């Protein structure tokens, strides 16, 4: 008999249909992955099992945990089940822990709530589970606060909380989305090990097929609140029935073809750049410490070349980007664009500034919501000495919107009328409108669903052909960098540890760190190739 059985679960929130007759089941010790794009209802399915749905939610159908129908349990009975029978791990480890309580308190708390054991036993159990998730109390005392831990360590604490009472079912909602690839691999291993060791059922919610392909026993694909396809992982991947599953799979491993780069002629030259940050002083008279975020970095970006920059969070990618864009001054070294320094006499050089544009990661936070699209995309005009006006300005707006696949009529809309993918198109239009020599893409597709990401990558490839783009593409997603760049640099702890032709670096990495990154990155099994 299954551990968890969801039967024809339908959910409406304030009369809006969210889930339509969803069914799936999980056996003891089994790992079931629910995958789909944003808005597919995968997280709501998880929250329905926990009965932690938002206000105004109405459910139909049944969720059987053993012999209990969770939809029929009272709130009190659910409180007894949550934490004891069902544990849950959330996406964002930075905010999933209470910042004002120690990790020990938070792990122990689960136990007395369920009156499962005495105080001393509870504390011993907390020690045990924290050690099990890789935070041995002799190195990570229970008195630590969440802010003293890294993202990966916090996620381990969240997992320790969820498994403190050895629940039969563990739900993990995008548990690794916010983490670096190497940390992701460790956390996935941990979850897999726990499921096997404790015989727990594991319900994994993820948007990333590659994450679950070599881990899940079963895959459930959802779209618009419905299950479109489900089955044992190997069968499903080898024999995809539903077109949406195929589309999702193809989009995950989407490849684009870039035009050949022209003869190398240097555009951006970065020489021995060092960027230090002052640390707060430890005492009034002590010398302030320094943190070297970028350490002696040199590279050249040629005209018409597409250069990638990869590395984990905190490696100095963003600092280097800010220095290149002339947003911050560097302590030593030189950055020149077209043979002119980006920083002239402690001030950003406007002549260089107007030759560069940037596209940021977050399509929701990078626009002023009170301006219309026309005004948003013409913002870079202020860099020009004589910005176009009148019909010339209108023509440029129309041309750019068309170039990124939108309609010229969209110029009069506000940004909230657009989806995430469309917003990223608008961001690209904004960057392109002054025909910059260099565009910096700072994780431009990381916040997008796979199918939208594939479209944006296609758009970039098209634009490369039409506008002869030169760009620096920063990403933590190796598969994206692999297809969208000619050359790649790998950054670790402020240094560039390896650079070279993209294909070469990926197929035969020379530096150990590059190998670690590539090994840690989840990949779709090769069977994906024959559906394309």
């Amino acid at each position, binding site marked *: 008999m299954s551990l968890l059985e969801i039967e024809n679960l339908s959910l409406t929130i304030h009369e809006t249909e969210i889930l339509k007759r969803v069914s799936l089941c999980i056996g003891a010790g089994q790992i079931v992955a629910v995958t789909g794009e944003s808005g597919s209802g995968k997280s709501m399915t998880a929250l329905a099992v926990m009965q932690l749905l938002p206000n105004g939610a109405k459910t139909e159908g049944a969720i059987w945990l053993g012999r209990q129908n969770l939809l029929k349990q009272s709130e009190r009975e659910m409180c007894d089940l*949550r934490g004891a029978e069902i544990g849950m791990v959330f996406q964002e480890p930075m905010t999933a822990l209470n910042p*004002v309580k120690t990790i020990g308190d938070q792990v122990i708390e689960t136990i007395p709530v369920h009156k499962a054991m005495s105080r001393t036993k509870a504390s011993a159990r907390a020690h045990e589970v924290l050690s099990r998730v890789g935070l041995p109390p002799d190195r990570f005392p229970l008195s630590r606060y969440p802010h003293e831990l890294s993202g990966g360590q916090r996620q381990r604490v969240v997992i320790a909380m969820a498994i403190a009472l050895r629940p039969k079912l563990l739900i993990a909602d995008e548990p690794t989305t916010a983490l670096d690839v190497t940390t992701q691999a460790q956390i996935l291993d941990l979850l897999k090990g726990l499921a096997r060791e404790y015989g727990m059922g594991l319900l994994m919610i993820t948007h990333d097929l590659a994450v679950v392909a070599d881990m899940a026993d079963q895959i459930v694909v959802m779209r618009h609140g419905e299950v479109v396809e489900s089955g044992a992982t190997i069968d499903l991947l080898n024999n995809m029935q539903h077109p949406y599953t195929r589309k999702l799979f193809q989009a995950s491993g989407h490849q684009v073809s870039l035009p050949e780069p022209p003869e190398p002629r240097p555009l951006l030259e970065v020489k021995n750049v060092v960027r230090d940050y002052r640390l707060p002083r430890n005492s009034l008279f002590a010398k302030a410490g320094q943190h070297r975020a970028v350490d002696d970095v040199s590279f050249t970006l040629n005209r018409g070349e597409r250069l990638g920059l990869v590395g984990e969070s905190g490696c100095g990618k963003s600092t280097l980007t800010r220095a290149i864009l002339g947003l911050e001054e560097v302590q030593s070294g030189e950055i020149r664009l077209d043979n002119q320094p980006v920083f002239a006499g402690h001030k950003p050089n406007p002549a260089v500034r107007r030759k560069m544009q940037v596209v940021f990661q977050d399509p929701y936070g990078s626009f002023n919501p009170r301006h219309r699209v026309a005004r948003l995309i013409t913002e870079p005009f202020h860099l020009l000495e004589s910005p176009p006006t009148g019909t010339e300005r209108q023509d440029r707006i129309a041309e750019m919107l068309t170039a990124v696949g939108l309609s010229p009529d969209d110029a009069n809309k506000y940004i909230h009328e657009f989806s995430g993918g469309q917003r990223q198109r608008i961001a690209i239009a904004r960057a392109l409108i002054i025909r910059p020599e260099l565009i910096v893409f700072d994780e431009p597709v990381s916040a997008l669903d796979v199918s939208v990401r594939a479209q944006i990558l296609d758009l970039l490839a098209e634009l490369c052909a039409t506008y002869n783009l030169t760009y620096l593409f920063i990403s933590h997603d190796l598969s994206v960098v692999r297809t969208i760049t000619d050359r790649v640099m790998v950054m670790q702890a402020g240094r560039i540890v390896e650079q070279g032709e993209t294909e070469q670096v990926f197929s035969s990495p020379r530096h150990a760190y590059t190998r670690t990154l590539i090994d840690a990155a989840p990949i779709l099994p090769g069977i994906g190739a024959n559906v394309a």
Partner: protein
Amino acid sequence: MLRYALKRLISLVISLVVASVVIFAVIEVAPGDPASFMLGVNAQEDTLAALRAELGLDGSKIQRYFNWVGGMMVGDFGTSYTYRTPVSQMISDRLWVSLPLALYALTLSTLIAFPAGIYAAARRGKPGDLTVMGVTQLGIAVPNFWFAMMLVLIFAINLRWFNAGGFAGWDKGVWTGLHSLTLPAIALALPQAAILARVMRSSLLDILGEEFMRTARAKGLSRRQALWRHGVRNALIPVLTILGLQFSFLLAGSIIIEQVFYLPGLGRLVFQAISARDLVVVESVVMLLVFAVITVNYMVDLAYAAVDPRLRGRS
């Protein structure tokens, strides 16, 4: 934690020094010569000079600043120009009314606001919340002297539970003293409580939307347990800020209430001293209030650190 406390203490001392210079300078440039004010417009020049010398107004500005600050350090605030009594005596008499009144009002406002704010946040959008929001809106809108007059009308004149005004003094016992401060404290506390309750509510609502609250629920805590164990302490930071500001206000800003209840408090002292150009008194009371405000802020800073481990610095 100790390092944090010391660091804050250093900034407290710096603030005090800066404040004393500013106060001294502002009072110095204010128009009106106390000596000619005291002696009238027809006074002889030599009489004025003699009085200035007597009041210590004839030295250089720097010398007078250091005399003033040095005196304050040992509790000598100088002598009032108009009453010819030591300022320290005048202030301490009034402080014994104003300080307990402020603390009393603050305690009342906290006791009303915390439960009201938490109650409203826990029942967001329901009738209980709407009632609290309506009442607090009224509490903010209605001026406190109106409350004061209503309180006098009901509890002093009609019910005769309290005196309509005046202060009985502490020498007849703590209870008698508190009794005569009760109506003014309530009048002061109500508008403050209304503000504080709203801050508490909105701060707690922000926290209730945080992801760690969902984590707490996923552990099996009930809504109420999660609110008390994980919500309230996190919600306290903005509340403490407002609380600190309110204490400073209550200490000095109660002139109207002191007037309504005829209480001999600091507010009235300053008011009288300003009208009489009694600069020594004004300077000293203002400095004292600045001292109180900065000290309260220091305590609020320490309270932040007690509530939020992230502020305690690296351990």
